[in-house]
Structures are given as structure tokens and as C-alpha cells.
């Protein structure tokens, strides 16, 4: 599947969204959460999507991750129309192209850091002997190599978020989606996470979309978009 995506160009367009609309049909009528949204993100770019609560930031992120379908519009990743993919193809798209960082970290409890990072590799079919190097490399990016065998429930909040970032990186994705990645961190840890994000986009030339309502986070991004009343500006 990965062959159909364009991986070569260092500044290639990774995310290409055109006139994307998302409607929710409720008993009270149809609510348009996203209205003709256009978003284009290139490799090495880190785009912040800001907006008040309920503005549709998370919905946009879930559509970008193919966790839920759009009502209308076009969405291409590296030139491929991903909205028309089957359920299994979507899963393969996620394992090969996408890394996701959640606000609540969402690490597997009762599992070690290694096991958390191994899971995406298992789903991607990476050979067992290749995994330790890939995991070590991902942990090196977030300076957590020494915690590789630590149970996830013994990590601090900042460490958990860094493990979450390493997990998003381990499959060497084309782009990373981050949902309020600093939402539960103090200032010091937030800064550190944002430094890692900058490093990742610069070193790995990974595209990144960060949903946040925190100005400091947005300042660290290369571009800032604001979602208001369903329209994305910027």
C-alpha cells in the first residue's frame, strides 16, 4: 500500500484537504461542524489548528486520521484519495502513514514502555529482530531510552506524553496528528514536548497537525490556523 504514496520530495504536499464538510444529523436538524475546510500541509511543516471548545477541532483531527468519515469534500494524502479507502485499507493507511498523539496519552496500562512502542510495529508486520532498534531510535528522539523497560503506570505525566510521541514516531509516519498534546502538562514539560515536535519535523521532515487552544503551543508551530464556526482560516 505504501507504494502508492509519494515519499520522495522533501517538501511534498502531504495533507491536501479541499472543501471538506462534516455534518451531524440530530433530532433538532443538521449541524455543520466543518464547512468547506481547506488545509494543505507539506513535509517538515507543523501546523497549529486553534479554536474555542466545540469549534470542530477534534472532528477535523478524527477525519484526518480516518477515524470518522467526512460528509463532503476531498482529502488526499501524498496524492492518494484516502476517503475512498475500504475499512481495512484505512487501517493500513493509519499504520503506514500516520502517527497520533493523544491529549490523555492513552498508553496501555500494565505494559512497559517497550510493549507500548512495540504494538504499532506488530500491526505493521515489522520483524521481531528489527523492533528493538526502531524502539530505541524513537525513544532516543524523546530522550527516554533509559525508561524502555519501565511500566507505563510508573511514568510521570511528561514522560507518558513523551512515550506517546515516541509511539507515534516508531513507524516513521508521513505525518503526525496531535490532539492537545500539552493539555495536561506543566509549562516545563510542555516546552520540552514542543521542542521534540520541532526536532521531529526538522530532522525527520514529518508533517504535523497540532490541535490546541494553547498560544504557547501555537507559537512553536510553523503555521497557525483558526477554526471558527466551522470555517478554517489561515
Amino acid at each position, binding site marked *: 500500500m505504501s507504494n502508492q504514496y509519494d515519499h520522495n520530495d522533501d517538501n511534498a504536499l502531504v495533507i491536501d484537504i479541499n472543501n471538506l464538510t462534516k455534518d451531524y444529523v440530530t433530532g433538532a436538524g443538521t449541524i455543520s461542524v466543518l464547512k468547506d475546510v481547506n488545509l494543505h500541509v507539506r513535509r517538515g511543516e507543523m501546523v497549529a489548528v486553534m479554536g474555542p471548545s466545540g469549534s470542530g477541532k477534534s472532528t477535523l483531527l*478524527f477525519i484526518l*486520521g480516518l477515524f470518522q468519515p467526512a460528509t463532503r469534500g476531498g482529502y488526499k494524502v501524498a496524492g492518494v484519495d484516502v476517503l475512498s479507502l475500504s475499512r481495512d485499507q484505512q487501517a493500513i493507511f493509519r499504520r503506514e502513514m500516520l502517527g497520533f498523539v493523544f491529549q490523555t496519552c492513552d498508553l496501555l496500562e500494565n505494559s512497559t514502555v517497550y510493549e507500548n512502542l512495540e504494538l504499532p510495529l*506488530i500491526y505493521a508486520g515489522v520483524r521481531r529482530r528489527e523492533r528493538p532498534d526502531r524502539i530505541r531510535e524513537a525513544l532516543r528522539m524523546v530522550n527516554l531510552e533509559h525508561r524502555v523497560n519501565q511500566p507505563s503506570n510508573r511514568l510521570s505525566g511528561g514522560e507518558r506524553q513523551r512515550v506517546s510521541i515516541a509511539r507515534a514516531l516508531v513507524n516513521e509516519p508521513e505525518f503526525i496528528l496531535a490532539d492537545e498534546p500539552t493539555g495536561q502538562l506543566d509549562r516545563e514539560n510542555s516546552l520540552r514536548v514542543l521542542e521534540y515536535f520541532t526536532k521531529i519535523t526538522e530532522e525527520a521532515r514529518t508533517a504535523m497537525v497540532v490541535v490546541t487552544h494553547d498560544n504557547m503551543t501555537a507559537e512553536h508551530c510553523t503555521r497557525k490556523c483558526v477554526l471558527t464556526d466551522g470555517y478554517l482560516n489561515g
Partner: protein
Amino acid sequence: MRYYDLVRVSVREVLRKRRRYIGVLASIALGMAGFIVIITMGNDLKKNFNNDLDLLGGATIINIMFEQPQLERQEWFRDRTLDAVGRIPGVVDTTRVALKTSAVTTWHDRLFGFNLVGCEANYWKVFSFNAAAGRLFDEKDVSEGARVCVVGTDLARQIFGGDKEALGQVLSIDDNLYTVVGILGGVRAGDRSQFVFLPITTARARVVGISQAYSAYVRCATWDDVATVAKAIPGVVRANQPDRALRVNVAWEPLKQVQRIFWWVELFIYSSIVATMILGGFGIWNIMMATVTSRTREIGLKKAMGALDSDILYQFLFEALCVTLSSSVFGVILGRIGIEYMSNMLGSRPPEGLFVFCLLMGLGFAAVLGIGAGLYPSIRASRMQVVDAMRYE
């Protein structure tokens, strides 16, 4: 997802959440142990039951005899015929008997009438008799034609005044003297309390009216063998000697009663085992449903990381399978302990092949149970929408 990873991840999950599985694990293990013990030891148990029930009803003893046909010579059992009957599958033992129904003896000028039986030494074994006092005559007495006798309890009391008083006394029958060596005992000894037993060789040589063994008894291993053995006997006799006026007597009514009782007992036991296993299955189903619900976010997370629906399906299915298979392994160990204990108790050894057969059947059933109970929860988990799972609180 590679097979190796599937096994590793599923086993790890089950081990980490082992506490929640203890109840169903115990239930399935006990059911499995019961299943293995009953199936493996069933035949030995039946034989043992048979011994006990036989004392009461003789349900597994077949009497074969030659009647006196009109104007023809009466047939008797040849050695080779009884040997051939003894080789019929399901036959445990055979014994020949010669009977005189109107024998008399005198003791201190008093006349006593009784039934006289000439029999072989294994007669006692066939009817589960023992000695209430003294001893029962043995193979040596029979082969030597010893002049010894065993007396029924009532007759001993009437003639000699008691069991112990009878031992060593000399009884005169048809002008021959026989030393009383024992008093007949056993649950069914009451039926023969007015009998005197002589070694068959002695009886044939010395008692007027006894010349040949016209009657014989065949003891079957279990009541299930009785019908087939009874059916096979005429053919076997015919193959070895004339079968003129042969009669095969089976106590069908007691046999049917015994079979009926045991059928109910078996039904009850198997129902209990099946119920235990099904309860275990429902337990797994219930736990797997709860597990799927409690791990909704985890499922969403795994799907967000690129897990296919089939990856989730196989993982949950394999977890259920792990629980039932590990339960059955415990069950097999418990079953083996049970078999060893019962073997010692019953003094018999079931065939090892039967245990292996039960083991394989048990594992197969556990696999079916695991897949059956885990299928629906696994399908439910695999079909979850990522967005719903991720937003689940």
C-alpha cells in the same frame, strides 16, 4: 499480525488479568477433570458397581443348561466348550455345576434333606461367595477329588447347631463321608442356605444321580456385555459339541433395572459435567463481554495505531481460547490425579490410550467452548468504530 505476536500478546493479556478468570478457570477445570475421570474410569467403575449389584441381583450371571429331551440322551458341558465360552469377549469367568435336588443325610438318628451341588472352585468367585466360617474348597480339593464339603448356614445350624460347631464334623451322604471345611457366606448365601457343596470331581465320582455337569454359569464383566454374550453362547456351544436342548437363562428383569438405574446415574453425572462446562462457557462469554467494554479505549487506540478488524477479532478470540485451554490443562492434571486415586481404590488400571483419547477430546471441547463463548464478544470488539471507541469514557 503475525501468529507469534498474536499468541504472545493474547497470553500476556490473560496472564496480566488472570484474577478475573479464576472462577471460570476453576469451573472448566473441574468439569474437564470430571469428564476425564468418568470416561477413563467408567468401565472400571461399572465393573465395581457390577460386583456390588451382583451380590444383590446376579444381573450379570448367565445360566446355561442342557434340558432332558424326550427319548434322547441329555447333553453335558465338555471342557473345550466351557473354555470357548470363557473366551467370548465380555466373559469374566465360567463354572460348571452338577445338581442333585433331593439328597439326604442323617445326624444322630435325625434325617435332613437338602440340595447337593457339585461345583468347581471358581463357583465362589462367579457368585461372589465367601466363607462365613472355615474355608471354601479350592482348586486342589477339586483336582484331588477331596472328600470335603461346604454347608449352607441354615443347614449347618439345623444339623450341627451352629457354624463353628459344624466345622470339622463329618457328614454322611450316600454312604460316603465328607468333612465340613466351611460354611457358605456372602450377601446371596441366603438363597443357598439349605445347600451342601462338594467338589465337582468328588460329586461325579461318589454321588448317586450326579454323573455329568448339565449346567454352567457364565459371569460377564458388565451388564452391557450380558446381551451380546447371551447371544453368542449358542453359536459357541454349537461349534464345540451338540447343542441339543440348550437353554440360556438370563435374569432380564434385574438386568434391565440395573441398566435403568445406571442410565439415570450416568445421565445425572454427564448432565452435571456438561452444565459445569456450559456455565464455564457462559462465564467466559460474560467476562469477555465485560473485558471488551472495559477495554473499549484500548481497542480504539489499537485501531488508531493501525490494527485491522481481524487483528482485534483474533486477539480477543485467542484470549478466550487461552482461558479455556489453560483451564483444560488444569482439568487434565486434576483428572490424572483423580484417575490415579480411583485406580488405587478400585485396584484396576484403565488403558492409557483411553486417557489420551479423553485428553484430546477434552482439549477439543475446550477449544470449541473458547471459540463459541469468545466469538460474539470478539466480533463486537472488532466492529467497534474508532471514533466511538476513542471517545468512550
